[in-house]
């Protein structure tokens, strides 16, 4: 019985078993790229990308400035893991595309790309429960479609290139405003070489009943994916957006570095759901932040499974009175993985409320880290923050860290932070096994129980998938 270290010693078979869930995304097709910016990053790379994308001059300038910022900024290894130093920016390919415009019908998508997304189940789910889908293959969207009717209501759902070129008046005023280029080294990198991603505008009062969804797929080795997403939800409008990410296993590390900005205008509601299931050699370094105006609500619901290193701290700047921000996060770190996730809650107006609930599971030699920041500056009234982070350790080689930082000025606020670390106790396992439940299943029941209250926050289709992913992860983790 039990989950002693020696029982779980990971031989090659076990390691493979642990990675089993990635098999769904673990396949590649031959590369067939008309445009390839080559290896490494310099001014020439930026100009190449601009030329291919026919970027406007202001975007070209924006990119070049960003490259300077990226080069001038040191790696944040004074607080973050030194594993970052293993990213070799000179070996990464920054732009790959076949030069085709995104297709509106799956029938027009090139066969091998279509097959990729079919194997991931994308076309089916679009028909089943989505209002629209954008599917990105390496640097650019291969497919982009939205249900009829939404367009008539004025909803815009396009990739970054279309967004900036064809709807400049809507997107340019907010572009790079929630997350400035210099926010961190990786937001600067994204600003220099971004391509693909979703630009969404939901007009006043329009409430989308079904979610919009994007799929991000890395198909080429040594490739860096740098999608850029900007979501503007106008007054009294509502949107749920979901993204799913996969990549096959490559020999060498791959980089995914996205920037996601959300603007929720007065009384708008935005829910951004991520289920990330990267293969275990992807560096996933993502900056996500939303700005909530008066009475608006932004919720980040984030599930991180897979990747070699994920660094992601979704944030909400509560800029208007009564705004609300929330981060719900589940992270599962298996052998060789480090989930470094958290939340940033910046209170910038009276009576703003933020809530962070984070649950992490460390399996085998996996490591999970929570970093949080809560900031309540001077002269505000009635701000509230609640933070809970709970960690579950599955065996004695796993590791968990928690590093929150809470700054409060003034006496009219309430903040509360609680964190705990626990494990699936031997008594609990014995009890379940005495009822005839096998060890792996008992473990997966316990883990699902641990995150049960958070899984409910995901839409039905995703919560079932999540449960399955966790079961698969746990199968590999017991002897």
């Amino acid at each position, binding site marked *: 019985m039990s989950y002693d270290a020696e029982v779980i010693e990971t031989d090659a078979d076990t390691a493979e078993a642990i990675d089993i869930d990635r098999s769904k995304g673990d396949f590649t097709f031959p590369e067939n790229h008309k445009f390839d910016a080559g290896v490494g990053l310099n001014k020439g790379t930026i100009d190449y990308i601009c030329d291919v994308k026919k970027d406007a001059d202001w975007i070209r300038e924006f990119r070049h400035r960003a490259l300077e910022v990226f080069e001038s900024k040191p790696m944040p290894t004074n607080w973050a893991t030194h594993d970052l130093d293993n990213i070799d920016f000179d070996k990464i390919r920054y732009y790959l595309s076949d030069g085709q415009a995104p297709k509106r019908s799956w029938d027009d998508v090139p066969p091998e790309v279509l097959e990729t997304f079919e194997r991931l189940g994308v076309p089916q789910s679009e028909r089943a429960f989505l209002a629209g889908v954008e599917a990105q293959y390496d640097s650019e969207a291969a497919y982009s479609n939205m249900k009829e009717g939404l367009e008539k209501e004025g909803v815009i759902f396009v990739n970054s290139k279309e967004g900036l070129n064809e709807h400049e008046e809507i997107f340019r005023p907010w572009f790079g405003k929630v997350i400035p280029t210099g926010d961190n080294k990786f937001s600067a990198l994204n600003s220099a070489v971004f391509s693909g991603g979703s630009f969404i505008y939901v007009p006043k009062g329009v409430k989308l009943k079904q979610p919009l969804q994007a799929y991000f797929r890395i198909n080429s080795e040594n490739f860096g994916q740098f999608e850029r997403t900007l979501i503007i939800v106008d007054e009294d409008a509502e949107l749920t957006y979901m993204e799913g990410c996969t990549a096959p296993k490559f020999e060498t590390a791959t980089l995914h570095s996205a920037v996601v900005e959300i603007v929720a205008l007065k009384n708008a509601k935005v829910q951004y759901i991520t289920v990330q299931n990267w293969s275990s050699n992807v560096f996933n370094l993502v900056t996500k932040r939303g700005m909530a105006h008066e009475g608006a609500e932004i919720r980040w619901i984030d599930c991180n499974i897979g990747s070699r290193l994920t660094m992601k701290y979704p944030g909400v700047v509560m800029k208007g009175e009564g705004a609300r921000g929330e981060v719900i996060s589940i992270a599962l770190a298996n052998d060789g993985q480090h989930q470094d996730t958290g939340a940033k809650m910046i209170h910038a107006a009276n009576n703003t409320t933020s809530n962070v609930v984070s649950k992490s599971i460390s399996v085998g030699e996996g490591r999970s880290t929570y970093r949080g920041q809560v900031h309540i500056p001077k002269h505000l009234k009635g701000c509230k923050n609640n933070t809970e982070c709970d960690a579950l350790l599955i065996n004695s080689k796993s590791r968990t860290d928690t590093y929150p930082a809470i700054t409060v000025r003034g006496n009219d606020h309430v903040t509360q932070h609680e964190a705990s670390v626990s494990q699936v106790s031997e008594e*609990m396992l014995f009890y379940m096994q*005495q009822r*005839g*439940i096998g060890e792996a299943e008992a473990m997966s*029941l316990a883990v699902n129980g641990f995150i*049960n209250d958070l899984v409910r926050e995901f839409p039905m289709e995703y919560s079932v998938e999540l449960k399955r992913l966790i079961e698969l992860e746990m199968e590999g983790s017991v002897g």
Partner: protein
Amino acid sequence: MSLLIENLHANVDGTEILKGLSLEIPKGEVHAIMGPNGSGKSTLSKVLAGHDDYEVTAGSATMDGENLFDLEVDERSRAGLFLAFQYPAEVPGVSNANFLRAARQARLPKGEEIDAVKFYHEMYEKMDVLEMDRKFTARAVNEGFSGGEKKRNEILQMMMLAPKYCLLDETDSGLDIDALKVVAKGVNAMRSPDRGFLVITHYQRLLDYIEPDYVHVMSDGKIVKSGDKSLALELEENGYDFLKEEVAA
């Protein structure tokens, strides 16, 4: 056909707790084990169920001829051994219904799915016997349960899993008289010629409601005296002290 324990020796952390215990529980019979605190009663149930903390150093235990010690904890359970715990563990976030379903599902051949409608119907029927509220199914296993609720839950699981042999470890502890009657009702409803019971208790009280066929007295890791139901009454009257004298003599 019986649960047969022969010359069983077992250690915890190097200390011998069971010192040559022998006992046979044929199907259709209810046996009670009584004994003072520290006599090894609870150890016996944990050893039979296969808890990791206990090391079997000698002796055997078979269930209908099958060696228990060859089986993992969950395999023993599926083979028909049930332990109603004195202190049932909490399983946060896992509902009672899902837990029982998983336990029932584990008993089905691979590829066969449980019939959810039938399952719920059966569960509600048994909950009614135990006077349990329907809301109970959605609560997490044993989490925040009162002592009485935990014990009822143990009996519900026992009824749902229909084992061949049931070990009841101090099931009466922490129960008021009304709860005790309900629990006993559940146990008595399960008495059958195809099922054996081992009731472990410190007090005679439980045996007023679950009438045993045989009573054994355990002391210092062994059965030191066996008799019929009247032995329990004798113990209630005279305590365990006279036993010590008898053993010493």
